[in-house]
């Protein structure tokens, strides 16, 4: 299996969640802002394929002082497809392994279609909230 191989709908992907966007005391612990693309997400929102990385691996290129407080959530690709999203391989030479993007959630697409995409971000937050696979130690 190669990181460049197409992403199967049966795969899981990980999304790292900054601590400010996860409150385990709420019915929906994860805030939808955790899925909002930033200006750096010019080709799509970053996720990591579970076939190539462990949850903790996804945090290696986050500032170490802050990475220790991050959560990681897991999403089933077929659930993303039901929301009209796709996952495309986008390996990073410097890692972390299994990097992929959701092109429908790139910065330019989000800026052009924010009103329609915000409810989808809420749905992503609900899905992710049901599968938090890494909590700060």
């Amino acid at each position, binding site marked *: 299996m190669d990181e460049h191989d197409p992403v199967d709908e049966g795969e899981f992907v990980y999304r790292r969640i*900054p601590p400010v966007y996860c409150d385990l005391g709420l019915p929906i612990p994860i805030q939808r802002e955790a899925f909002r693309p930033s200006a750096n997400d010019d080709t799509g929102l970053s996720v990591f394929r579970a076939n190539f990385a462990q949850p903790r691996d996804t945090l290696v290129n986050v500032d170490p002082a*802050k990475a220790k407080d991050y959560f990681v959530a897991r999403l089933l690709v077929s659930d993303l497809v039901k929301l009209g999203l796709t996952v495309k391989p986008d390996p990073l030479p410097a890692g972390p392994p299994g990097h992929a993007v959701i092109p429908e959630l790139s910065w330019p697409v989000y800026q052009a279609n924010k009103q329609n995409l915000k*409810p989808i971000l809420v749905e992503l937050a609900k899905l992710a909230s049901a599968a938090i696979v890494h909590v700060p130690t």
Partner: protein
Amino acid sequence: MEIIPILNGPIPTDVWAHETHAPNGALAKSAAPWEPWLQKIAEYQHLGDDWDGAGAKAPSLELVESAVGLAHLLRDREMLPPARVAPGIDGTILFEWQFPDGTYAEIEVVRPLFAEVMVIEPGKPARHWTLPTE
């Protein structure tokens, strides 16, 4: 859901601006039970860029003051305090409500004296509008 009529009510620019630029400053006023959230929002004025370690932009002081002013305005209208407030990754500030019936509501202050509202009630399409309303 009582939040909806309050959010749907008129929020004119001058009323919001008055709360934001109150004599003692919006950041200095007290407003229990919103107090913990007001304190949290006020703390966002000290965020710097890259506050999340992944490149997030910090909100401006003017935007923080607007968010505090809006919170005072909503508190004055006896709106329930939010379930969560958070800084956005692009320099915005979010208020979020989650209700037992599954209703989700949020206000995102995206620039000084301007906010985007979204309400999602179960089984209904999301509704969007902006503040101020007039």
